[in-house]
C-alpha cells in the first residue's frame, strides 16, 4: 500500500486510490465539480488541480493515482491561483442569476467562489446565450446557461440508471446538456440528477420556487416507501407559514449510506412526502349519529384524548376477546409493533395479527423493492406472522360474523380488499377503532379514530429487508393533537390496568433488545445514523 505526503502529512492508502481520496482521508477538502464517488471519473472540470512534486504541471487530484512517496500540495500559492482562474473560466458564460435560481444557497459555484474565487471578473465580451427554463421530463427543469458541463448527470443516466437520456450536444462554448431527440428524462430515479448537479442547471420541478433553501432545516430519517429503507434527510421549515400553504416538509433528499442506498433514492420515495402535512387526522374523533362536519369529516365529532382512550378501553372490555381482530401494520416502527403485541396480546389477551396487504408493486434490482412497507422484516423478527393467509383467515372469520370488534393500525383495508369484502367485515362489526395518521376510507368508516404521529414526528426504528435496523428521528412535532403510536398504546395499557413507564422510545427498544434474541446487544447509540444488522 503506497504512502504519500499531502501538505506535509503522511498517509497510507489502498493501491489504486486517487489523490483526492487520500487527501480526504487526511481531512483536506479538495474542491471538485465533476468528481462524484458514485460515478466514473471524467476529470473535465479541472477544479481539483493540485501540485505534485516531480510533475512538470499541476495534476487533477480526482484522476491521479497515488504512488509511493508522492508529495502533494493542495494549498500552495500556484494551486490557489489556479483554482481562482478555473472558477473564472467556469463562470465565463454563467448568467449569474442567483436571485431566481433554486440552487442558490446550496450551489457549489457560490460556495467555491466565496472560498476559492473572490476575483473581479475580467470578461468584457457578451456571454453565450443558451436555453433557459426547459422542462426535460416530469420531474426536472434544465437551465443550460447555468451548466458547467461537468457531465455528472450524463454519467448518472449512463451508469446508474443505464437509460442514457442525457447527452452533451454542440461544441466549444456552445456545448450544452440536452435530451436525445424524442426522449425525456423519465426514469424511476430521475430526481437524483438534481442532487448531483453541483450548480443550478438541473432543478426539481416539485421544489421549484417553493422555498429558499436557507429556510430549511434537515433531519435524518429513513424512507417509508418500500422495504429498502433508503436513508433520507427530511427538509422542513416551520417559521414561514405562508410558504406552500403552511406545509412543514418541503422535500426529501437522499442521505449517503454505503450499505443501503449509496447516494441515491427513487422518485417515488423522493416525492412521497405530502402525506406528512396533507389530509391528517388532527384530533381524536368519535362517530356521532348527527351528520356534523368537523375536522373535514362527516359524522365525526372531536373528543378529548382521555375520553377517547376511556371509550376504547371500555369497549375492548365489553366485546368478548375472541370476537376481536387487531390488525397491526408493517408501516409501524419496531417499538410500536413490540408494544402492540405486549398491550393487545399480553395485557388484553386479544389476538393480534399483522396484515401485510398484497400491495406489491414495481421492483427492480437496484433500490425499489416490491414490498411497499418499511418494516415487514421487523414485524417478522418480532414474532408476527407475515403471511397473506392471515388476511384471508380474518376475512373468513368476519364473513362468518365472528368478528365484532376491529382495531386497525393505520392501513386502509379498502386498499387491499374488494369493497364487497370490506363491507362484509365492517357491516357486522360493532366497533371499529382506527389508529392512524391520515384520513382514508377505513378511518372514515370507524366508530373511534385515534390520531397518531407520522414517522417524521417520532423516534423509532425500522428493519429493512436486509435485516438492517435503522433509526428514524423526530423532526417535527406531531400534528394537531396526534400522538406517537407508542404513547397511545401506553395509554390503553394503563386503562387496562397495566401502567407502562416509558418516557422515550429508546426504553422500549432496550426492552426489545433484552427480550428478542436477534436484537440482542443493540442500542440506539449502536444503530446510530447508519443502522446495524440484526444478529
Amino acid at each position, binding site marked *: 500500500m503506497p504512502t504519500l505526503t499531502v501538505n506535509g502529512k503522511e498517509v497510507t492508502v489502498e493501491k489504486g486510490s486517487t489523490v483526492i481520496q487520500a487527501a480526504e482521508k487526511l481531512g483536506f477538502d479538495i474542491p471538485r465539480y465533476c468528481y462524484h464517488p458514485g460515478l466514473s471519473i471524467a476529470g473535465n472540470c479541472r477544479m481539483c488541480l493540485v501540485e505534485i512534486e516531480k510533475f512538470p504541471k499541476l495534476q487533477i487530484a480526482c484522476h491521479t493515482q497515488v504512488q509511493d512517496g508522492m508529495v502533494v500540495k493542495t494549498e500552495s500559492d500556484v494551486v490557489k491561483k489556479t483554482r481562482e482562474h478555473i472558477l473564472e473560466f467556469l463562470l465565463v458564460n454563467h448568467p449569474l442569476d442567483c*436571485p431566481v435560481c433554486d440552487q442558490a444557497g446550496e450551489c457549489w459555484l457560490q460556495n467555491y467562489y466565496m472560498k476559492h474565487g473572490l476575483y473581479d471578473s475580467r470578461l468584457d465580451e457578451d456571454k453565450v446565450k443558451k436555453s433557459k*427554463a426547459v422542462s426535460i421530463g416530469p420531474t426536472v427543469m434544465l437551465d443550460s446557461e447555468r451548466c458547467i458541463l461537468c457531465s455528472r448527470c450524463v454519467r448518472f443516466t449512463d451508469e446508474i440508471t443505464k437509460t442514457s437520456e442525457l447527452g452533451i450536444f454542440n461544441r466549444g462554448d456552445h456545448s450544452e446538456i440536452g435530451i436525445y431527440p424524442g426522449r425525456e428524462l423519465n426514469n424511476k430515479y430521475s430526481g437524483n440528477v438534481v442532487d448531483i448537479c453541483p450548480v443550478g442547471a438541473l432543478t426539481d420541478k416539485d421544489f421549484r*420556487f417553493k422555498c429558499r433553501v436557507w429556510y430549511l432545516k434537515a433531519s435524518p430519517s429513513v424512507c417509508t416507501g418500500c422495504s429498502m429503507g433508503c436513508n433520507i434527510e427530511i427538509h422542513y421549515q416551520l417559521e414561514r407559514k*405562508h410558504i406552500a400553504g403552511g406545509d412543514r416538509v418541503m422535500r426529501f433528499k437522499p442521505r449517503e449510506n454505503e450499505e443501503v442506498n449509496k447516494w441515491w433514492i427513487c422518485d417515488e420515495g423522493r416525492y412521497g412526502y405530502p402525506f406528512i402535512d396533507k389530509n391528517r387526522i388532527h384530533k381524536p374523533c368519535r362517530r356521532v349519529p348527527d351528520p356534523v362536519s368537523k375536522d373535514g369529516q362527516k359524522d365525526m365529532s372531536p373528543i378529548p384524548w382521555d375520553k377517547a382512550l376511556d371509550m376504547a378501553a371500555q369497549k375492548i372490555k365489553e366485546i368478548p376477546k375472541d370476537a376481536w381482530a387487531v390488525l397491526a401494520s408493517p408501516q409501524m416502527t419496531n417499538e410500536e409493533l413490540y408494544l402492540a403485541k405486549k398491550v393487545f396480546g399480553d395485557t388484553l389477551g386479544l389476538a393480534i395479527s399483522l396484515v401485510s396487504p398484497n400491495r406489491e408493486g414495481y421492483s427492480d434490482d437496484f433500490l425499489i423493492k416490491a414490498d411497499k412497507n418499511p418494516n415487514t422484516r421487523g414485524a417478522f423478527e418480532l414474532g408476527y406472522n407475515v403471511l397473506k393467509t392471515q388476511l384471508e383467515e380474518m376475512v373468513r372469520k368476519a364473513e362468518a360474523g365472528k368478528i365484532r370488534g376491529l382495531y386497525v393500525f393505520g392501513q386502509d383495508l379498502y386498499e387491499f380488499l374488494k369493497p364487497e369484502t370490506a363491507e362484509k367485515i365492517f357491516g357486522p362489526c360493532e366497533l371499529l377503532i382506527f389508529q392512524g395518521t391520515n384520513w382514508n376510507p377505513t378511518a372514515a368508516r370507524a366508530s373511534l379514530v385515534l390520531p397518531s404521529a407520522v414517522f417524521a414526528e417520532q423516534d423509532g426504528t425500522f428493519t429493512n429487508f436486509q435485516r438492517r435496523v435503522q433509526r428514524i428521528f423526530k423532526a417535527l412535532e406531531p400534528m394537531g393533537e396526534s400522538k406517537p403510536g407508542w404513547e397511545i398504546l401506553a395509554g390503553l395499557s394503563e386503562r387496562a390496568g397495566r401502567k407502562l413507564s416509558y418516557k422515550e422510545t429508546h426504553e422500549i427498544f432496550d426492552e426489545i433488545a433484552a427480550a428478542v434474541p436477534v436484537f440482542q446487544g443493540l442500542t440506539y447509540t449502536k444503530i446510530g445514523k447508519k443502522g446495524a444488522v440484526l444478529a
Partner: protein
Amino acid sequence: MPPKTKVIKQRELNFLEKLYIPEVIRGVCITSGHFFKNLTLHSLHRIGLLRHIAAAVTIMYPEIKRRYPHRYRTRHRLTKRDDGTPRCVACMMCETVCPAKCIYIVAEENPDPNIEKQPKTFDIDLGKCIYCGFCVEACPEDAIRMDTQIMNIAGYTRESMYYTKDRLLNPEREGDIVKPSGSLR
C-alpha cells in the same frame, strides 16, 4: 482593551439660578425675542424687505406637506418594469433579511424564461415593520423602494396595515404622495 469611561459631572446651579424668578424672566425674554424677531421679519418680508433673512414658519400639516429629505425612509413600494409588471423576481432576499419578519412572498413562474420567477403574492405587514430599510438595501433588482414619501400610515384594524402586492405596486392610488408645495424654501 477596556472601554474608556468619561465621567461628566453635572453642573451645580449658581445662586442666581437657584433664586428661580430671574431664570423665568430670562426664559420669557428668549421666547418673546423670537416672537418679535419673527413678527418683524414676516412684516418686512410682506413689503419686500430683508427677504434673504429667513423667518420661522409653521407648516400647516396636513393641508400642506413638506418634502422629506431624499433618503428618508417612507412607505414601501414595488417598482415596475416598462410593461407594468413588478420588477421583483421573488428572490426573497428582502424576506430573508427583514428583522421584523414582516415580508411574505410566494413565488411563481414567469412565462418569460429570461425573467423566470415572479411574486405570486407579496405582502408586507406594516404593523410589524420597523422601517429599517434593510429590504431596500438587500434587493438585487431595485424592486422595492421606500421613497413614496407616504408617512401617514395608520389604520383602525390590523388587517388594514397589511399591504398586498397590488397596494405596494400602486402607491399613487392611495393618494398621499407629496407634491413639492412651492410655498417653502
